[in-house]
């Protein structure tokens, strides 16, 4: 009898020991795999873009870019450091005035609890919206390229990923001269045609200083107030001035297309470099005609560049638009930047998130689609402006060839070589 009792006791002890170890082990494993910080199921990102009014198309493109990124991120498991929390896009119409844009931002921040925001395309809307973001200390990203958004502004929560308009001018001019030299063509006389909206004014202002500094001549300087109604005086002035190249900027599609059509009508065939998101869109081909667009170049904040073709295929099959442009690309990158920052921060605390974005250095992943990103990574300076290496962010120059806009400069990002316009 005693033998069996002894064995039962041993077995009982063993069983109890196993249970204790198992429970202890289970508890230990459970705590080890708990997500850090509060349990978050979804992370809201706000998008304030024009969905009505003259820039509704731009808003739509931005929305597409954001949706594309969010789909990818959620399909891959969301934000891992937040326990697989999914990203949720909260989109709202910025409306047609700066007031409505700012109201939209304030609403998203205070009622939707967005963790970060993006928007609002038009630089005057962006200024109003970023003021709200700064006030509420919500990290905000924008693709607007007016200098005034971060340069000398002293804001902490605003991050501007595109090149400054004034820097775009530098690169555009350099590129033009470099290409011309390669072709054996002399550029001495330059025409400037632009509207008086902020982004374009900064660009032209910089050119007005750069061009004489390089020993070149501005032969005509046309500034117009939108809407243009008719481009005849501008085109006549350009024709009469006999320039070797034209720098050209318009924020509204009708103005933009009127000028190009008028150039064609008056037989003005010159190298044209433009600024303004319209100039790279598929709508141009539909509106102005592929033959008219051939050879025209545009400076833009971002574009589909070498190595990212698969992304474009995905975009094209989802949205039916023939190619990817700045508004889509930049917003796509913005979402990915926020995602990387969230992963790193492991929290949805907006101040921590802001600090993370400020110090971040993203060296791989979709966020690096922005110009210079693959080589130098994505980083921001203390003003919130994106820097590439030790230089401020630079733009992409795009050229229309065969009815589509291709990245042509900087050369390492080019998807096609530049063709000097006939």
């Amino acid at each position, binding site marked *: 009898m005693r033998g069996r009792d002894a064995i039962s006791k041993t077995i009982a002890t063993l069983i109890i020991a196993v249970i204790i170890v198992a429970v202890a082990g289970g508890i230990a494993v459970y705590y080890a795999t708990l997500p850090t910080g509060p349990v978050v199921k979804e992370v809201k990102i706000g998008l304030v873009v024009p969905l009505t009014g003259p820039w509704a198309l731009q808003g739509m493109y931005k929305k597409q870019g954001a949706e594309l990124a969010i789909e990818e991120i959620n399909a891959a498991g969301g934000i891992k450091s937040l326990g697989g929390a999914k990203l949720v896009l909260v989109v709202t119409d910025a409306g*047609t005035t700066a007031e409505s844009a700012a109201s939209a931002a304030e609403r998203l921040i205070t009622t939707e609890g967005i963790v970060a925001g993006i928007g609002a395309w038009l630089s005057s809307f962006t200024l*109003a919206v970023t003021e709200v973001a700064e006030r509420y200390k919500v990290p905000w990203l924008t693709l607007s390229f007016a200098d005034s958004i971060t340069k000398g502004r002293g804001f902490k929560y605003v991050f501007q990923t595109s090149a400054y308009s004034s820097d775009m001018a530098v690169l555009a001019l350099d590129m033009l001269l470099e290409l011309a030299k390669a072709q054996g063509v002399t550029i001495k006389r330059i025409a400037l045609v632009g509207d008086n909206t*902020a982004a374009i004014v900064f660009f032209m202002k910089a050119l007005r200083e750069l061009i004489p500094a390089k020993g070149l001549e501005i032969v005509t300087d046309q500034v117009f107030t939108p809407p243009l109604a008719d481009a005849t005086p501008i085109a006549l002035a350009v024709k009469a001035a006999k320039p070797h190249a034209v720098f050209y900027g318009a924020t509204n599609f009708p103005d933009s297309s009127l000028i190009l059509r008028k150039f064609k009508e008056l037989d003005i065939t010159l190298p044209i470099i433009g600024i303004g998101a319209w100039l790279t869109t598929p709508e141009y081909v539909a509106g102005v005609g592929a033959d008219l667009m051939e050879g025209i170049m545009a400076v833009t904040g971002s574009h589909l560049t070498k190595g990212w073709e698969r992304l474009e295929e995905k975009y094209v099959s989802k949205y039916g638009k023939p190619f990817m442009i700045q508004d889509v690309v930049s917003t796509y990158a913005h979402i990915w930047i926020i995602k990387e920052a969230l992963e790193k921060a492991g929290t949805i605390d907006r101040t921590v998130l802001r600090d993370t974005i400020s110090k971040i250095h993203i060296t791989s992943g979709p966020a690096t689609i922005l110009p210079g990103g693959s080589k130098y990574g994505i980083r921001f300076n203390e003003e919130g402006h994106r820097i590439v290496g030790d230089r401020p962010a630079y733009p992409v120059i795009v050229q229309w060839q065969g009815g589509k806009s291709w990245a042509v400069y900087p050369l390492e990002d080019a998807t096609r070589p530049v063709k000097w316009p006939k």
Partner: protein
Amino acid sequence: MKISFAETIAKDRFLILVIILLIIPYVISHPWFLRIATLTFMWAVLALSWNILGGFAGQISFGHAAFFGLGAYTSTLLFLYYNISPWVGLFVGAGVATLASLFIGYLTFRLRGHYFALSMLAFPLILLLIFSYHPLEWYELRFPFLGDAPLYFQFASRHSYYQISLMLLAITVYVVRMLDRSRIALYWRAIKENEDAAGSLGVNTFKYKMIALMISAFIAGALGTFYVQYVLTLDPHIAFGLHVSVNAVVMPIVGGLGTIWGPILGAALLVPLGEITTALWGGSLPGLHMIIYGIIVMIVIAMIPEGLYPRIRKVVSFR
């Protein structure tokens, strides 16, 4: 006499309303609510100022943005270039707007009806173009973010802006009420009824129209500064855009032209309506929220063409 009795009741009611409005933020302090309320107060002030010229004196003008914008730009430029506090700039701006109104009125008062209304449209448009002239570099002004700097009209909390704009509204209402009870109002009414008859009875119609315009411009100019200090960006469209002039006309009409509560009710309907339709539908099918907004506006005015306040009064007095 019946009029002043109704007004006496209204007086008590407005005071009560102000007190209630002052208390509300302590109960409901949601920032978005405060924002809508603040904007409503501000647009109500603009509507009230327009109503002096349009509702009392019967001169419909589509150019009110001129005064609003001049006030906004004056104080902003004084601040950005000379570091003068917007509190001071407020009065300078209102003064500039008033001077401009003197000039504008002198030119346009010989016109009547639609001609007057639309000629007034030219002025904010001219100003918009001038201020967009790129060498001036006024096409996009931004303010330094001062956080909490009451002396420079910047406040850390939304609540402060709410209180200030409410005070501005209250002051405007009392000024308007005072005007409404004055003898000038009688002349305005006569001019509104039939300008020619009033003139032939010996009323100096030009003088009284000018007085209405100048007061109207002064208030609008002052409001311009308040508004810009709230939104903290300024460009020619914010200052002189068509939507400003349209709001100035539309709100009093919806609320009841020529009454004191009318412009306030008009603003109280339209501003939140815009915000709420955007909030509910602004992210879905593009344009949907605007369609709903437009339809509601059309239905309201078709059903209540005399204006909200007159209808409310009618309904209440039948009780």
